């Protein structure tokens, strides 16, 4: 039992399950999943589908935070990516053509890569503080998106493009499958190669890593490129969902939700050790909470406060200080043993 409660994902998963249970008690059809025309339907499936953009962005944010950085530009990159894709599709003769959509996707992802590389360059080569370096693009990026769309909200009607956000494949929403694929690829890349542990080393102690011969510049650069690319994919899903490129609203505040998801999942903002599984759970907590607000019919005016209160509760429940306090309070006999264990320094 203790091994379960001490697991670092115990509290995030508990919070997620609690949210699901509360919803189910309020309205039992919350957990109902039905099959119609070979497609799964239900509130839970909606959560998975809607979480795709945030999932992609938070994934990139996890890697960036692990290097002791932060990427504030992800929302703006989403806007640019959507603007590029929709402008190409909207300007073409045949918006429904697979070839056109492929070109649009390639261009959007290419631009996102360049923007991520720009961030990486500023942070790892020029040496600007991450929060300032990415702030540049956060502010300028939406302007670029507006330039691309000429200040209009470009709307298109393209079946193949909409399919990315609303389509189904093997019973499941395509958007969710894209996010799932990204999770698997990033996890494999970080944990099957040594990238993950070297990223952690750079995040924990940059100077010691440099002296140990770690190519920290490349690792930090790569983190921002990854974050940019994933934000670009998120921007495509977002714009495909609303069939429009809205330079002002696309990905608005998503950087803050992504940071929240990373922290809820148990990765420290100080950098170093990171957990991709934790971030996935963090994103699902946020998305379930949003669904809860809709589901319970919390009035729009009160929903931000409701959201904030739940987040505070989740964060406090996870806090190690609280756990120590409880342990001291209720298991005084066990205390000395566990304290000695955490503090031991072996000569």
């Amino acid at each position, binding site marked *: 039992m203790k091994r379960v409660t001490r697991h670092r994902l115990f509290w995030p998963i508990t919070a997620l399950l609690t949210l699901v249970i509360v919803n189910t008690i309020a309205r039992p059809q919350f957990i109902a999943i039905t099959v119609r025309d070979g497609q799964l339907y239900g509130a839970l499936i909606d959560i998975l589908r809607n979480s795709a953009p945030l999932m992609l962005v938070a994934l990139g944010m996890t890697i960036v935070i692990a290097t002791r950085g932060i990427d504030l530009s992800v929302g703006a990159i989403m806007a640019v990516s959507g603007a590029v894709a929709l402008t190409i599709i909207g300007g073409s003769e045949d918006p429904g053509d697979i070839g056109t959509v492929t070109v649009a996707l390639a261009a959007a992802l290419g631009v996102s890569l360049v923007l991520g590389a720009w961030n990486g360059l500023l942070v790892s080569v020029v040496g600007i503080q991450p929060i300032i370096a990415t702030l540049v693009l956060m502010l300028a990026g939406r302007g670029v998106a507006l330039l691309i769309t000429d200040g209009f909200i470009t709307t298109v009607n393209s079946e193949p493009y909409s399919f990315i956000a609303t389509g189904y494949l093997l019973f499941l929403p395509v958007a969710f499958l894209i996010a799932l694929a990204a999770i698997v690829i990033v996890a494999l890349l970080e944990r099957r190669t040594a990238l993950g542990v070297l990223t952690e080393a750079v995040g924990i102690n940059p100077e010691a890593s*440099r002296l140990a011969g770690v190519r920290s510049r490349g690792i930090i650069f790569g983190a921002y490129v990854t974050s940019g690319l994933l934000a670009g994919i998120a921007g495509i899903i977002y714009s495909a969902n609303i069939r429009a490129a809205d330079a002002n609203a696309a990905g608005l505040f998503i950087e803050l939700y992504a940071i929240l998801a990373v922290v809820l999942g148990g990765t420290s903002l100080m950098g170093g050790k990171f957990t991709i599984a934790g971030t996935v759970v963090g994103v699902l907590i946020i998305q379930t909470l949003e669904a809860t607000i809709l589901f319970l019919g919390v009035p729009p005016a009160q929903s931000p406060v409701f959201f904030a209160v739940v987040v505070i509760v989740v964060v406090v429940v996870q806090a190690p200080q609280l756990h120590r306090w409880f342990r001291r309070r209720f298991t005084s006999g066990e205390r000395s043993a566990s304290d000695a264990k955490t503090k031991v320094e*072996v*000569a």
Partner: protein
Amino acid sequence: MSPMSADTPVTASPVVAMTGITIRFPGVLALDAVDFTLRPGEVHSLMGENGAGKSTLIKALTGVYRIDEGTVVVGGEQRVFTSTADAQASGISTVYQEVNLCANLSVGENIMLGHEVRRGPSIDWKATHRAAAEHLVSLGQDIDTRSMLAHHSIAIQQLVAISRAMVLDAKVLILDEPTSSLDRDEVEQLFAVIRDLRDKGVAILFVSHFLDQVYDISDRITVLRNGTLIGEYAVGDLPRGELVTKMIGRELDELSALSSVASRSIDRSGTPVLQAQGVGRRGALEPADLSVYPGEVVGIAGLLGSGRTELVRLLYGADRADSGQIDVHGTSVKVTSPRHAIDRRIAFSSEDRRAEGIIGDLTVAENIVLGIQAQRGALRKIGRAEQDAVVSEYMHALGVRPADPNMIAGNLSGGNQQKVLLARWLATAPELIILDEPTRGIDVGAKADIQKKVAELSAKGLSVIFISSELEEVLRLAQRVVVMRDRRRIGEVSSSEIDLDGLIDYIANKGEETAA
């Protein structure tokens, strides 16, 4: 020496008298019944190696640390300072090495902060700047008080800090390593100001690692070692050699068994593994030469701040050299980053284990394979089996305790962290390993283990550059010793031709006759 020291009667009533000062930190006795006296109109140097208790004593005097036992008498009154503000109010001001002023305020604002000239409820800036300028002029400085502090050199910033102390009407001025980032002319300028203040009756407590400067400016010297008072001396009564002996002390020789290592003969007819000529960096190290032959252990001896760490950091590419040439196996190479050095099979273990060595939150195993992993690149991950083999081989060979590869490295003791670092580098199969203070702050057992390992590896052909403050250790392990002082290489001796006293004398005095 200045005439003041001779004229000031020893009986002049002290402005600060600390008696029996004892300070305990968890598990450590930082100061053990130390007495310290400061008289008006003297420059008093506090000397000791790292960990001797110099900064603890200063912090006890300035109210940063609470004193467990002992009394502090300032100006004839017994005082208990609970904060630096308390100490400042009693006329004790401190100027630190890293200037603790507001870089984004003007010179005048910094000098007068909290003592601005007021006109009713508002500040009269014109008068404030005029007052600041007067204080600067009294120190012989003509600086625009409206310029931003950050735009001035460290030397000027220090003078501004001293002016600020004068605004606070300081009777005691503590200068903690004020000269460590100044060049020769700036030091002269600072010393002129210090002498001027001394002649005005201010008591000055001076801390510096530069022996020449200490002898240049001090009237009196107090020596600490391992938290205890060794003694207080008039500067004329304490020759350099004696001072160094008192600072370093002599450690019981538990490791005499290793003494055969140093006398091993080294074949120096071939090409050296590494040969550096005129390697230097402005402000850090004057151009120096160094060569290491296969299987040789070259020691670098010198006090802290003598340039020994600066030299090896340049050889490793941790800092960039701005002069000189480095040959590895006879071919000239550019070493501008640690990677270059590692690619030439040179390894470097920093003196600062926690900040520059161990990756605290990673496990022992991850720390050990980090060196090889970095060498191979991120994409070629070391397999589970290979990692286990490497880790268990080196943990066993070096005797890391506890023998748990999954333990978080930050929780190991200093000695075991050092062994983990040594394991990291040995796993990369270097031809030359640079060890900077590998035995500092670790227990005798671990110390012996590390020394034995160095001896054993060098016998197998590994070249080693070995830096230690403990000269016995250097003499025991190294066949040749390069001696450094005041950021200069002052010479080289064969360890079979010199004993401990000779080496101490060399460090303290060699070259003085010609330089003076």
